[in-house]
């Protein structure tokens, strides 16, 4: 299985870095072909909200920077993993700057999904979505929001399966591996 990890750890965020490393180890142990993009190290400009990727250059962002490469890798993998510090229940800035640039992967056309309007698929298949978030201390509301955000993103990006895990600093290595292992099993079962 081809896996792309979007690592949204900011400088000095050891916990999120540790989660990304644990995820890579688990996936490689399962024989996956894993690539990691450390988002802090690449220049990705904020989405302009211009819809150029839908009507001017369909499927490609009008901004020519690493955001294009992230989108290409995101659609070519079978499992897309978002690793991020949880910021008020959502993604941190580093991850979100990349996620906002993924909209070329869908078309402007609308369709109903479960009674709501969403954008139609551009590609025949989309990767499963895994969210691994870190919190400096347990927070049920923010954990719930993070799980909801992954579920909502899975709808908008037509992910066939999704799962989310949250890790806190007090979690030991074994617990981190267990949390991540559980979500990977959820995705395997779903597939």
């Amino acid at each position: 299985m081809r896996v792309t990890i979007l690592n949204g750890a900011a400088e000095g965020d050891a916990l999120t870095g540790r989660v990304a490393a644990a995820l890579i180890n688990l996936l490689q142990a399962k024989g996956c072909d894993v690539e990691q993009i450390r988002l802090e190290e690449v220049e990705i400009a904020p989405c302009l909200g211009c819809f150029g990727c839908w009507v001017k250059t369909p499927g490609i962002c009008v901004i020519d920077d690493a955001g294009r490469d992230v989108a290409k890798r995101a659609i070519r993998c079978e499992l897309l993993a978002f690793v991020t510090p949880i910021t008020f229940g959502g993604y941190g800035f580093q991850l979100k700057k990349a996620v906002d640039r993924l909209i070329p992967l869908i078309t402007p056309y609308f369709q109903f999904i479960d009674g709501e309007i969403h954008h139609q698929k551009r590609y025949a298949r989309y990767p499963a979505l895994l969210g691994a978030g870190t919190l400096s201390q347990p927070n049920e509301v923010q954990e719930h929001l993070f799980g909801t955000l992954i579920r909502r993103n899975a709808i908008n990006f037509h992910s066939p399966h999704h799962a989310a895990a949250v890790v806190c600093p007090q979690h030991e290595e074994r617990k981190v591996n267990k949390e991540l292992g559980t979500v990977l099993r959820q995705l395997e079962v779903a597939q």
Partner: protein
Amino acid sequence: MTAPDRALLLVGSPKGLKRGSSARLGRLLFDHLDKKGIETDAFHIHEALRSRDPASLQRAASGADLVVLATPLYVDSLPAPVIWATEQLTADALPENSRARPRRFAALVNCGFPEPSQNATCVGICQQFARSGGFEWAGALTFGAAGAPTRRVRGAIALAAEALAVGEIIPEEASLPRPVMSPWLYRLANFAWRFQARRQGTKENLRARPYA
């Protein structure tokens, strides 16, 4: 409840303080606050990020006792630059003298889908920011169809302004739970995309798969 003396509008859209739905919705609200004698100001988040100047954002926010974020929904949550802004505006990041007095935070969130309910996760994030960032939560208004300026939308904003101007939370009756237009009709917007594509010369190519 204390009425605000100074209110700051934070615009979270890349389109700036004059163009775009978020700025328009924010201005509608702030026109009401202006008329009630509240000193108002506006700040474009993307500009501060572009110039890597978090201090200008912190200065603007620390002088206000009511901060209102007007933002589009990007992929189910706040646009990346707005997340950057929230990280700069937590209580720890602000000057000490601005932490002593109560500050309130409200949000106006609009999405391109017809259903305002699609903004719910984003509002939850805004609420958590307010709580963690040392603000009192003053409520939110959510808009579908990019906040098209219908009579219902204008009425909701007027009600919200009445509440915010006297230090209250945006009331439940101001919320717009139903789409301002039928989601079935909304699919007609597909023709508008084709029209735009024809002008760009890409009509036959709108479903291109460059990364397949």
